[in-house]
């Protein structure tokens, strides 16, 4: 199925092996999704009873953080760009999804409350809204990626940062949420532009649909697609952009196209994560979520996990999300520790914990590297 990779040397990074897609049957192509969905269903059925609501919420937070880290990894890790506005895409997607479920519920069922049980009508509207949130974010990702035709490196980073900050200010200046369906039906156009999503205080009253099942189903899709992207020729082109833009351009890689594509894909998944975030109970999505501070959290995850390593950033996302909960008493010191980790990591192991490799490529004896 795979060719055995040439022996990696210290100087050249280990490129992932290309899978021959023509030989993957329909079943082979779908089984990771099936396993993910089954696992998600099991988690949904078992975890809340087994470990309680509080810890289930942390597991949900971890899932969302993983989606964010894995998607940011497409831009920062695989393609070697430096986006520090990833939370902006997430917030945009979250607001879009929240608007759909909140105002959709008002229009359809005259109530903002959750409608239907597990896999009921409300649930499907929530899933659709997350996907739409992803599409809205992807459109923004296209716009933000466009300057990469002319800009590189640091300048692009500043554009992404500027995007997040602009979004934050724009969201702060939005109108009040319309309370009920009567108000919505009689709303004038002037009340709908800018959209009524709560202004600086945030968009509360979004029905809280997010649960373990949907978070981990979306996580499965994100991870499998990201992994297949990395293994495909598309991913290789992205890695070549990361390694040397000029050389890859000389080899016929359309550098600008892959950069924009990376932005669009990453933003799409970030938008989905935003939809999940906006519908998570106990949270209130607010304009500040679009700011750089949240973006930095995800940047730290990708940097520590290893830029390009999907399992690496997932592990980092898990640790960095769970750690603060464990160390509640040391809240003051949490970010100091993170900052020191970041600095020390850059001094001693700049490629991150796993570099571009996946976990099973690191541990000897469990390697799939010789699987052919």
């Amino acid at each position: 199925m795979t060719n055995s990779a040439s022996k990696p040397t210290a100087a050249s990074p280990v490129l992932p092996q290309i899978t021959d897609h023509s030989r993957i049957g329909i079943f082979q192509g779908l089984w990771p999704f099936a396993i993910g969905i089954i696992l998600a269903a099991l988690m949904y059925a078992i975890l809340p009873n087994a470990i309680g609501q509080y810890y289930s919420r942390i597991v949900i937070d971890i899932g969302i953080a993983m989606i964010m880290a894995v998607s940011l990894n497409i831009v920062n890790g695989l393609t070697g760009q430096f986006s520090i506005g990833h939370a902006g895409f997430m917030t945009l997607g979250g607001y879009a999804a929240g608007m759909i479920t909140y105002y959709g519920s008002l229009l359809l069922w005259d109530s903002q409350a959750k409608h239907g049980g597990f896999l009921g009508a409300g649930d499907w509207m929530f899933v659709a809204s997350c996907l739409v949130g992803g599409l809205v974010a992807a459109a923004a990702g296209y716009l933000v990626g466009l300057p990469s035709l002319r800009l590189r490196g640091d300048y692009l980073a500043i554009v992404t940062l500027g995007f997040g900050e602009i979004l934050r200010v724009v969201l702060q200046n939005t109108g009040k949420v319309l309370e009920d369906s009567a108000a919505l039906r009689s709303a004038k156009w002037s009340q709908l532009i800018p959209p009524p999503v709560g202004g600086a205080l945030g968009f509360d009253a979004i029905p809280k649909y997010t649960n373990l099942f949907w978070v981990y189903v979306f996580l499965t899709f994100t991870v499998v697609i990201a992994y297949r992207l990395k293994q495909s020729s598309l991913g290789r082109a992205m890695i070549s952009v990361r390694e040397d833009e000029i050389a890859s351009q000389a080899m016929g890689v359309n550098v600008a196209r892959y950069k924009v594509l990376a932005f669009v894909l990453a933003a799409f998944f970030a938008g989905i994560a935003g939809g999940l975030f906006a519908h998570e109970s106990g949270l209130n999505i607010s304009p500040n979520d679009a700011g750089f501070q949240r973006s930095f959290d995800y940047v730290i995850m990708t940097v520590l996990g290893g830029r390009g390593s999907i399992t690496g950033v997932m592990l980092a996302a898990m640790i960095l999300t769970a750690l603060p909960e464990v160390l509640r008493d040391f809240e003051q010191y949490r970010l100091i520790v993170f900052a020191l980790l970041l600095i020390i990591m850059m001094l001693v192991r700049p490629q991150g914990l796993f570099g571009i490799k996946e976990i099973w490529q690191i541990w000897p004896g469990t390697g799939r590297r010789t699987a052919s």
Partner: protein
Amino acid sequence: MADFVQTLMTALAIGSLYALIALGYTMVYGILKFINFAHSDIVVLGSWISYSLAIKILPVLGLNPHNPETPPPLWVGAVVLLLSMVICGLIGFVIERLAYKPLRRAARLNVLITAIGVSLLLQNVGQLTFVFGSSPQKMPSLIQDRELIRLAFSSGENAQVVVVGLVDVMIFVTSAVLMLVLEYLVFRTKLGTAMRAVSYNPDSASLMGVPVDRVVSFTFVLGSALAAAAGFLFVLKYPTVQQPAHFIWVLLGLKAFVAAVIGGIGNVRGAVLGGFVIAFVEQFGAFYISPNYKDVYVFALLIMILLVRPTGLLGSPLQEKV
């Protein structure tokens, strides 16, 4: 007309603050080619150190540190300014030695990430209760703001008045003096020549006998001292000293960075120009369009300039070498 002049005065004062901070960004970028994300945190340090010094010095003079009844003599302000510049210069030196110097040969992205790490570290160490704490403080007024010039405009039947305050003038004059000193340093002294040589090509400069490490350290000291001055002047104008991770600091730093990019990053005169351009866009946009979106104007201008002229207003076009 009166409104226009008043906005102009504010823009000049704020623009000189942006310019002071932008100078630090641009000098570091010119020499080490990376965005020093921790620079805005030096500004924060500057203002917090000014505050700490002020509430230590005022009791010595027999004044209530938090609310002096009579304005302290002018030299108190000067001493606080100089001391915080010296302290921040030292901190800048230490940061460069510990965090950036080991990465001199590393990829630029790694240095950028380190800078983000340093920035987070400074913010969160500053928030610890035994350092500065996480609640805002009120800077004692070291300089009594008073009416300096009064301009009267008669439009129609009622005359409008523009008041030029002492603090605004102090900010503008202090920044102007500092910028002239820097201009002299960079373009008229041997050290400045060395700085420009390192910025042009560090390897050849070192072959020509320029002590690159010392020049880099000096650049950091200089940039940090200017940032400290900006921090001091900022709390002089807006006396509420916010906690170190507050987003007004980050916005201040971001806008100053935008100023550096718009002027042409790496270009010392460009940073000053950019600082004033940003302040004018921000203040006039806030006054004539809507104050709610004043941050948007700045970033929109940045994106437009980057698309039209990626190297900034005064930057030289980038040559790509394989």
